[in-house]
């Protein structure tokens, strides 16, 4: 059993709120330790502290590793490595777009200014002539926007 095999297996675990993206591409798996073929430890971190999907994803992660034949699976949820949207993989960003969500820009976590929310590229037409309607959307990780070019409302995955 290798770390890579565990990560490949975890590609099958999806975010229940955005089923096009895996927990790996979301960047919420922060560590995988393979003690032996029979003992694997996975560390994960929630996107938002109050994310209601974390318990479901935690048990899905455990089940996916167990399905590899690992007897002892430990899954810890910690804030040791805090999640930020910079942890999204390129494949993760593409998956968000596929779900109709504008992917967040890469940013410097120390100097994030929320004005960036006003120039989010529209997931439908690509225009940056967009306006932030609300920093809060249907789930904690999304914001609401309007495209002044193609005149459609859309949701963004907000930079954190």
């Amino acid at each position: 059993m290798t770390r890579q095999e565990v990560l490949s297996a975890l590609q099958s675990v999806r975010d229940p709120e955005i089923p096009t993206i895996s927990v790996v591409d979301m960047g919420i798996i922060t560590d995988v330790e393979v003690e032996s073929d029979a003992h694997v430890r996975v560390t994960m971190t929630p996107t938002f502290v109050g994310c209601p999907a974390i318990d479901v994803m935690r048990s899905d992660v455990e089940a996916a590793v167990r399905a590899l034949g690992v007897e002892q699976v430990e899954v810890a949820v910690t804030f040791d490595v805090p999640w930020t949207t910079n942890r999204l993989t390129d494949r993760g960003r593409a998956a968000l777009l596929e779900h109709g969500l504008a992917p967040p820009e890469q940013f410097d976590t120390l100097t994030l200014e929320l004005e960036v929310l006003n120039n989010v590229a529209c997931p439908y037409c690509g225009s940056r002539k967009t306006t932030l309607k609300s920093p809060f959307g249907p789930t904690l990780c999304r914001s609401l926007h309007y495209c002044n070019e193609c005149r459609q409302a859309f949701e963004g995955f907000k930079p954190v």
Partner: protein
Amino acid sequence: MNQDAVKDLLVRMADDVLILAHRHSEWTGLGPVLEEDIAFSSVAQDKLGHAQALYAILHEHFGMPDPDVMAFGRAEADMRSCHFVELPNAEYDFSLVRHLLFDASEYVRWSALRESSFEPLAKLAHKIHGELKYHLYHAQTWIVQLGSQGSEESKARMQSALNAAWPYALGLFESRSGDADLVASGFFPGEDALRAEWEVLVQGILEKSSLTMPHDHAAVLGGRDGYHSEFLAPLLVEMTEVYRIDPSATW
């Protein structure tokens, strides 16, 4: 580490966000526009998460009961929330003003806690700080819009709500006997230092909003010692209803 002082600090911080989360959630389905309904509900959900994370630290590191018992299993006199978060939502102007004043204080507090000598709290602070940017941004946007960019009526209502909220908001920064030890050990910077920073942050936002910061008010205190406003008891009755019927209920 002065364990009693740490517990006092973390419990009052957690209780404040727990109770305000409940108040914010009362806008669910009732917000003046759909986006505001969603915004207050989202802020409430974030804040519940913050309360849970603080109760989890208290449970794991300081032997306090688990987060559900802390949130739903305590008597009113054992709660340590301040009166500010207990007040009913009233009109939207008051809710927005409370949202601004509270989140400005949270922003200042959690910014400082990133440097806390207590590592689990510092790690949590890095995470929560990023979320609070959105809370403060939301509150600030509306305060500016209804203040300097609004009508005479909206501005007058915001000022009046601000004046009413102010003495209660000062109660967020009540110093406690054990705080000096926590300041000395670098656990947190102390309530007076936080309040001074908060006033600067709030002053800047109010200036942009053409609103005047109230002065010379005595803070409304008591919650940190278990003496609460008349509004907490009925809130707890509603919030703990399911837990009291079945403490093991999950949903």
